[in-house]
């Protein structure tokens, strides 16, 4: 005790120490949760599959083998099943496994890009609105209210229809729907952060607004942004699949899980596997990101655990 009092109070190492231990605590809390680790594993696997899809796919996803139209998957003792096509073939004789693997790319690219785009735009608008408050904040919040008046998926459908088919347009339509979520949360966080002593201290010593936002506000809102992003990713992937299912997504020549489900619907009576496997794929990936998001939230904010 006496010794600690004689040491200089602020040593660099000590200043850093709490931060390091905080990071350690977060990582260990995350890893301790088996469910969160499972979510992370699913997500990494999903990432690897999207990168390696062309190598992993046993066949060309567009290759039609009309002799194998609606051939069943293996392992169920059904006639016509072949290990060469483990998940069976679709109505045009295309390999379902290869289409699933390649189709994962659209879900991943749309999911990640939409989140990045809506998180950066939404957070920026939210941060500015919360930081400056006043009439600007009022206008932004009324705008958010208006945006929230539309059911999310319907707005995405309307934007998708107006913009036309295509990967970029699909990402735009979904981002236009999602940015408000970030805007609201970040604004609320910034409203409380800007009142903290360290922000005022920085302003008193003459730091510019930009500096304060970048140096003091942004690092403190990264945790909620990260948590919402992971949890929203599942919703975005489901919306992407819904739009592709409805035929308002990417061009029909590109295999997507939603598109495969839509094609498979016609053959529910005699070939259930067409609509079943893409649905399972979507569910596993969305489950993975949801578990990851829950785990991150628990690790970053222990107060919210078990909610």
């Amino acid at each position, binding site marked *: 005790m006496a010794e600690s009092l004689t040491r200089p109070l602020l040593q660099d190492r000590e200043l850093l120490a709490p931060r390091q231990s905080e990071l350690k605590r977060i990582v260990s809390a995350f890893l301790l949760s088996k469910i969160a680790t499972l979510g992370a594993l699913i997500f990494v696997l999903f990432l690897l599959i999207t990168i390696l899809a062309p190598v992993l796919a046993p066949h060309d996803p567009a290759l039609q083998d009309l002799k194998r139209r609606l051939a069943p998957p293996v392992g169920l003792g059904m006639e016509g099943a072949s290990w060469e096509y483990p998940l069976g073939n679709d109505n045009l004789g295309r390999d379902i496994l290869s289409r699933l693997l390649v189709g994962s790319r659209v879900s991943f690219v749309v999911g990640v890009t939409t989140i990045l785009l809506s998180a950066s735009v939404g957070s920026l608008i939210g941060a500015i609105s919360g930081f400056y408050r006043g009439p600007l904040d009022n206008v932004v919040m009324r705008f958010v209210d208006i945006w929230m008046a539309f*059911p*999310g998926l319907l707005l995405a459908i309307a934007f998708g229809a107006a*913009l036309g088919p295509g990967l970029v347009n699909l990402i735009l339509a979904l981002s236009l729907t999602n940015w408000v979520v970030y805007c609201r949360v970040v604004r609320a966080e910034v409203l409380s952060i800007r009142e903290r002593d360290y922000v005022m201290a920085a302003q008193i010593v003459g730091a510019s607004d930009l500096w304060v936002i970048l140096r003091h506000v942004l690092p403190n809102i990264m945790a909620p942004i990260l948590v919402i992003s992971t949890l929203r990713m*599942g919703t975005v992937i*489901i919306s992407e699949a819904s739009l592709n299912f*409805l035929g308002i997504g990417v061009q029909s020549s590109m295999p997507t899980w939603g598109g495969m489900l839509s094609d498979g619907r016609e053959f*529910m009576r005699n070939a259930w596997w067409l*609509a079943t496997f893409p649905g399972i794929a979507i569910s596993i990936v969305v489950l993975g990101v949801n578990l990851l998001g829950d785990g991150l939230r628990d690790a970053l904010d222990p107060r919210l655990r078990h*909610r």
Partner: protein
Amino acid sequence: MQYLLRRLVLIVPVLFGVSVIVFTIMHVIPGDPVQLMFAGTGAGAEQREAMRHALGLDLPLPVQYVNYVSRVIRGDLGQSVHFRQPVLELILERMPATIELTLVGLIIALAVAFPIGSLSALKRYTLTDYIVMTGATLGISLPTFWIGIMLIMLVAVNLGWLPSFGRIDYVVHPQRITGFLLIDSLFTWNIPALKNALAHLALPALALGTATATFSTRFIRSSMLEVIGQDYVVVARAKGLRERVLFARHVLRNALIPVVTLIGLQMGGLLGGAVVTETIFAWPGMGRLVIQAIYNRDFVLVQGVVLFFALIRVTINLLTDVLYVWIDPRIGHI
């Protein structure tokens, strides 16, 4: 009362904004609507120009917007190019189907979520709780349209228990009073029609309800946990109140308040989900109408339906707010 008035006044700018957004979305469409209207008819440039003039599409955008809003206020949402019918008429014809589906979906969701979520909260950290939470997390990950397809495949196609498309069989004709088939057949005491309508409603409402139930279960569990942790519950328990009485008298009533919030929160998801569910089950509601309109590039109709969806959402938000004040009068004074 004052709160209600303030809330009503606040709706005006929201509706104004909604109309601007709907108008803008439909004006960023690539391609000329008149060109689309006359596609394949061999109409000449002169006819197209005359139509453009008749529709007011040759006017500057702000003028077009003012014209649009003044028409909407008068209840004129335009004419559907594909159906050759007024848009408002088409929407009103289908609105009861959508509301019926969404409400029954919501009832199913709450009927499942409330008891299960409460049970999970009361038995926190037990096996029951873990099973419920795992089930809810799994459920949130299932896309509504996939649940719908699986239900059709299992219950309608394989087991043949329930019909998989439409709202009622063509041979059954309940008298149309409100447009809500369940209400109309009850009013006229037409039991075969009621049974038929319920059978048709079961699968789509279940698909829509399942997706909502999973989120609701988690929400109800956490709000119930909050109530259980309150001082008055701890005191009541310390007094030696029996668990059953404690739950009925102190926990349940207070846990009902967040359910109203939940309804407001879930309505957006339910209405959005209805668009997809209606398409899968060929349910003749507004959701299927908007998708048909998009396929037919009937943008006047798309505009009308999107506007109506927003209107329903805003109305429900208002109703839940009013209900909120009614249940918990403290809120109105904030």
